[in-house]
């Protein structure tokens, strides 16, 4: 699934890397970055309510290129800048993590385990 399709499904707003053409099939939802850092799967969507520099840094280290910020959390300008530098797309959505996870699951995005 493309970032445009994901954003459309969750009524999102795309920032950071807006030219991302990756196809995503798997999502992991967590506010705990150490759990995210344990994952070894390519083309993964990170769904989180943690909106700070560390969520972007975690994505950078874990080679994650798409972050969804749930619960109407907004990315600060320095987060957007760091994401763009590292080819990471941020999608902000007003929906809760549970709501977003449900929509993505219904649309055939798979869980990791």
């Amino acid at each position, binding site marked *: 699934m493309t970032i445009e399709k994901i954003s459309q499904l969750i009524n999102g707003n795309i920032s950071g890397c807006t030219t991302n053409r990756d196809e995503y099939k798997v999502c992991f939802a967590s*506010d*705990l*970055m*150490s*759990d995210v*850092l*344990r994952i*070894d799967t390519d083309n993964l969507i990170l769904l*989180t309510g*943690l909106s*700070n*520099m*560390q*969520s972007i*840094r*975690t994505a*950078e*280290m*874990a*080679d994650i290129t798409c972050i969804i910020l749930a619960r109407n959390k907004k990315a600060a300008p320095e987060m957007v800048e760091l994401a763009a530098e590292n080819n990471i797309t941020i999608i902000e959505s007003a929906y809760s993590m549970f709501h977003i996870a449900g929509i993505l699951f219904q649309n055939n995005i798979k869980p990791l385990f």
Partner: protein
Amino acid sequence: MKLEFAISGGDFSRAGIASSEVKKMLKKINVEPKIIKRVVVALYEAEVNVCAHAYKGNIFVEIDGTKIKIDIIDKGPGIENIDEAMKEGYSTASDAVREMGFGAGMGLSNMKKNADEMSLESKVDEGTKVTIINYLK
């Protein structure tokens, strides 16, 4: 090749800068992406640990043709019980650290998982030294 970075305890806005620089350097010298990820995940957890627990620290990176060796040395409260600290789920982190998405007691075990070799020395009220080694081939 040698790199050195300073870390300030409590300064979460800068946590990850050293890991980011090391990642760029390893990419530049064409290290395999899976190895780069292991190195930077271990280093990033270490950076966050220094920010979370210590007063200040330094990172010393040495890259030769066969391996990358990283020493993370901090001045801080040290670790009272290293065996306990290595267990998943054991944490002495503050609420402020948890709000940053860390502090669930996974840091040291994540570092161990991603390093080919890891050693840890600590003195209470003095500080901690962590060494991680990853082989490049």
